[in-house]
């Protein structure tokens, strides 16, 4: 459906089934049916500008194994986009009574309200609250705002399902018949800025994603030098050869030659995997290890679908929605 922003007059499209919309041009967020401004709407002012984000990204990439030594001099930034992702934060509390004691689970759940993410972000990312401020359109200079695309009820169900999944295991162990009460408090909609940077090195077009609030590099592509790719192959072959040789020698000493070789070669394959993977591709990707695997662009919808599946599964149990 087509909407017109009450603040800047910009026209934009939103999905039919949502009740909150954000103007992509100025970020103004309002209730579609009434046109009233959303009161619990926050955003994070960008702290790392595109240059700082790019410098941080380069500083992380330069320490990667196998990056060409002239990378820093020859790489150049070709485009930068600031994406403001709509994130809903929920505080969910699960409780159950069991033989006079209480079973508890509490968690803050942050979920991007998007069917398809414009950029990959870590699945377990705990969005910081540091720096969150009430939204005011005049504070912004640039950046693309995304309108929430998923129904808030669905997100809430998902947040509850996440906590339910944890608490149900505990209830099962304590009193399988106990009733679980879930309390969910929505902490409002927050637009969170993330940089998408594109840069070129020796004709290769590469992409990096950087958190514009904390400066953390989520992911960034980099090239491997031919020398280092060769070196990585050399490393994996040496591990394999050493494993086999050790296995063979021990096999000869112990009179179980076959077992010795198997014992040497299987760990060698495990050890050679990482160097081999490094040598296999010219373009490698650095990924932040701190917040779980990266969600791909279609991640959120899958995550929500999975969450809703859990809800439908657990609706057979004693599950009281409040």
């Amino acid at each position: 459906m087509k909407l017109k922003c009450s603040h800047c007059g910009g026209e934009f499209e939103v999905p039919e089934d949502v009740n909150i919309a954000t103007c992509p041009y100025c970020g103004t967020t309002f209730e579609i049916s009434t046109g009233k401004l959303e009161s619990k709407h926050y955003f994070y002012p960008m702290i790392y500008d595109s240059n700082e984000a790019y410098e941080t990204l380069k500083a992380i990439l330069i320490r990667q194994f196998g990056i060409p030594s002239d990378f820093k001099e020859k790489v150049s930034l070709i485009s930068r986009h600031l994406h403001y992702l709509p994130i809903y934060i929920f505080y969910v509390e699960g409780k159950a009574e069991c033989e006079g004691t209480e079973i508890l689970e509490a968690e803050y759940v942050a979920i991007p309200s998007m069917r398809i993410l414009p950029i990959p972000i870590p699945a377990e990312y705990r969005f910081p609250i540091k720096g969150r401020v009430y939204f005011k359109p005049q504070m912004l200079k640039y950046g693309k705002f995304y309108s929430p695309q998923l129904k808030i009820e669905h997100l809430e169900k998902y947040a509850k399902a996440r906590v339910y999944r944890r608490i149900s295991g505990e209830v099962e162990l304590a009193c399988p018949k106990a009733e679980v009460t879930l309390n969910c408090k929505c902490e409002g909609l927050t637009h969170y800025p993330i940089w998408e940077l594109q840069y070129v090195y020796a004709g290769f077009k590469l992409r990096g994603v950087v958190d514009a609030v904390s400066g953390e590099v989520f992911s960034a592509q980099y090239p491997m030098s031919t020398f280092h790719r060769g070196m990585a192959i050399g490393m994996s072959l040496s591990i394999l050869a050493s494993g086999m040789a050790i296995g063979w020698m021990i096999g000869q000493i112990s009179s179980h030659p076959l077992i010795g070789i198997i014992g040497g070669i299987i760990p060698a394959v495990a050890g050679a995997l990482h160097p081999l993977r490094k040598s296999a591709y010219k373009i490698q990707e650095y990924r932040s290890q701190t917040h779980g695997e990266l969600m791909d662009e279609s991640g959120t919808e899958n995550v929500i679908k999975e969450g809703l599946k859990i809800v439908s599964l657990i609706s057979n149990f004693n599950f009281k929605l409040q």
Partner: protein
Amino acid sequence: MVTAIKEYRCKRCGAPLKITPETIVAICGYCGYPNWISHVEEQILIIPSLSRDEVKFSFKKRISEDFDLRKIKDKIKIVTVDGAYIPFYFYTVRAEAYYEGWRVETVAVKRGKRTILETRRKMVRDRICSTLKISILARRGAEDFSIKELTDYYRYANPETVDIMQIDWSKVKLPILKTEIPVDEADILARDKAMNIMREKAKSKVSELTKFICRAKILERSPLTLLPYWYVIYSYRGAQYRAAYAGWDRHLLTAQEPIMPYHRILYFIGSVAGCLISSLGMVFSHHISTLLLSLIIGGGISFYFGDRLVSDVRIERGV
């Protein structure tokens, strides 16, 4: 990293202040005057922090003494030294748990002349009681680099705390961040955490947990406590690394360090050692379980060092 959202000025000298919407107290960078930005009702404890220069000195001392860093100390440049006071609640929680579960035991049984290993399943019912020390970070999602190490070290070192109203402000040089978690939510998170710890304890005693009930009672909650946390970002050959310090005594929490060629040689040897362990274990084991175990251990070692071999950074932890 802080950013100025709205222009605030020092009440004493009028210099602009750098604040975020969550700063409780901003210390003027020019005259050192503490400016209260938001009103605080509850009691707050604070641990006086050492100064930026002292942290910097500590880092420089480390790079001239550390076995790995002293070889490259001329090429190391400090990029920034920054930090903040991070708010925590510290709890003492009494937890009592009852559990039931199956324990699988492997026993050696003599059958004639041979000794064979037999596995038996045994039902275990027991109670465990513990008084746990729990820390709750009073900020959402601020689980930054080394925060866990900071609280662990705080418990170990037990530095003296001072009421925030009585602090010597000329010594506080760090921005103070407000809490984001109300006390009642922190209580629930603390009890939840205590129960999870007890469950893990029970799980470690049996191979299959079939029943678990836990009662967690808060015996004590500290006032909101502000721990000073510093980090140094340094560069070596253009790449950046980070080292984190406890602010009250400059104790190193964790540090990222560059991987040198000799580390890679050691990792290579480690990977090959995995093959040796597995091979030796397999040829000399008499039972399928020990045979598989040596294969898994050797494979794990080899896999771990293979990963280290092509990784980008080493993490060193403070002792």
